[in-house]
């Protein structure tokens, strides 16, 4: 009987250990206070949307490449001011396998396409009418820029307008990680 009770106690101990074992693997950032900065290290979420030319697209189609994803809208003055620098970044880094992806938040394709055409934007522009990317990437304002590594994980999330130099700086860690 004592043997049995000892065995029962051992079973209980094992169950308690199993129940409270925290596990291994990558850590989740549980102390973040919000905003895109907290997303570093998390897997990048993708949602199926369309490009301004109507073709189906989504972030997951660029897996294996370094992606600079810029959430923007035509009514947003800092977004408009930032776009020439994004275009330069695209022209400079695209030959090295970097994708610059503009994701318009909540506007009609026609509006975004007109703006891109008039301002010489040649990097891909996606139309996210339901603003799914904005929510998933914890945007607290526009523009919001997310750098995604080749492994599909977020390297950096940045709120607000960036200069070309700041974009290069944000991109560097993702390029170094092979």
């Amino acid at each position, binding site marked *: 009987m004592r043997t*049995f009770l000892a065995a029962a106690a051992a079973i209980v101990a094992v169950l308690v250990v199993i129940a409270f074992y925290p*596990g291994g693997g990558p850590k*989740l950032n549980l102390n973040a206070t919000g905003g895109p900065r907290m997303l570093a290290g998390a897997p990048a979420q993708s949602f199926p949307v369309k490009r301004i030319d109507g073709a189906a697209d989504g972030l997951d189609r660029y897996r294996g490449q370094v992606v600079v994803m810029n959430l923007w809208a035509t009514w947003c003055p800092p977004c408009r001011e930032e776009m020439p620098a994004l275009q330069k970044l695209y022209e400079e880094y695209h030959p090295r396998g970097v994708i610059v992806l503009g994701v318009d938040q909540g506007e009609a394709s026609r509006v975004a396409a007109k703006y891109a055409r008039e301002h010489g934007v040649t990097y891909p522009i996606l139309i996210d009418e339901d603003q799914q990317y904005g*929510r998933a990437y914890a945007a607290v304002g526009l523009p919001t820029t997310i750098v995604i590594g080749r492994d599909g994980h977020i390297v950096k999330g940045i709120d607000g307008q960036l200069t070309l130099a700041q974009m290069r700086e944000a991109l560097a860690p993702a390029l170094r990680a092979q």
Partner: protein
Amino acid sequence: MNRVTALAVSVVCIGLVVAQDVAPLADFFHTWQYATALALGALVLIAYANAALKGQDGMLGKRCTLAIAGALVVTLTGIVSGLLGPDTQRVTHAPGTVAPIPDLHAAAFFTAADAQSIAAGNAPIVIRRPGHRDVEVGPNERRFLQSSVLLLQPTHAAFVEVRDASGDRLTVTQPTNASFLSPVLLFPNEQEIAGKKLPFDTFAVPALQRVVKTVYLPGEMTTSLRVPPSYAGKPALLFAVDDDRGSSHGIAIAPDGLDVTIAGMRLRGTIGSYPTLVVASAPEPIALAAGVALFLAGITWMLIGFVAGRPAALTVKSPSGS
């Protein structure tokens, strides 16, 4: 301490812990009185088991300790859930966002929702923990994690779409909300109208410098309002449009899924629900099941011993041998 008392205490303790598993949100299970009752029960069970193991209750008493051990496992599971489990918390977040759940060392992914899933109210929430499989919690499901139970409670929600006069979609923002770019209103505030406190939320249309205050009108209020007859008695939204300097640009009532034109915009609200995640402490189900199984095994073993040890008269053959 006799065997019947010990078994009665076992049944009460098991009943309490199972009841906590069934109704984990009940206030009683999160009080010190509940934890104290279980602790006292555990002491009674330990005292009996100690005496029985010393042979003070005969062979049946020794067998009974197996059932007592099962009851103790269940009781301790209940105590542990009370001491180590989290306080009940309700987490409301916008679709597509992530909320940390530090008590579980986990993150809750509030799944993306479009107008259809808001109308259907069937969006799940996914719990992710390092080194563990994802756990999806659906609308009518409950999931156990460690000493917690996770379940969903529906809250009022509306998916709003805004178009300009030419029908082009416009960006919706919620500057006062943690999820700035969400077109889903979760009505965290209340507005008093006609003596009733009604769910209230606000969103902005920055392209047109408009702020739209939105009140959720329950079905019983729309019967007396000017809405299409087929929408009377169903929930609707009241939109009040201001510009960003606070000047009013009109009010409109929008039945579920219908466009209304106001202040140069076409507004549509799809009404439904989106889940709030509820995390409450609850007994660990594997330990609970193991304890109950042990208890039942002990009772069975004891009954076998009881039947086997009954007076021989029951099995004595008649003298005639016929």
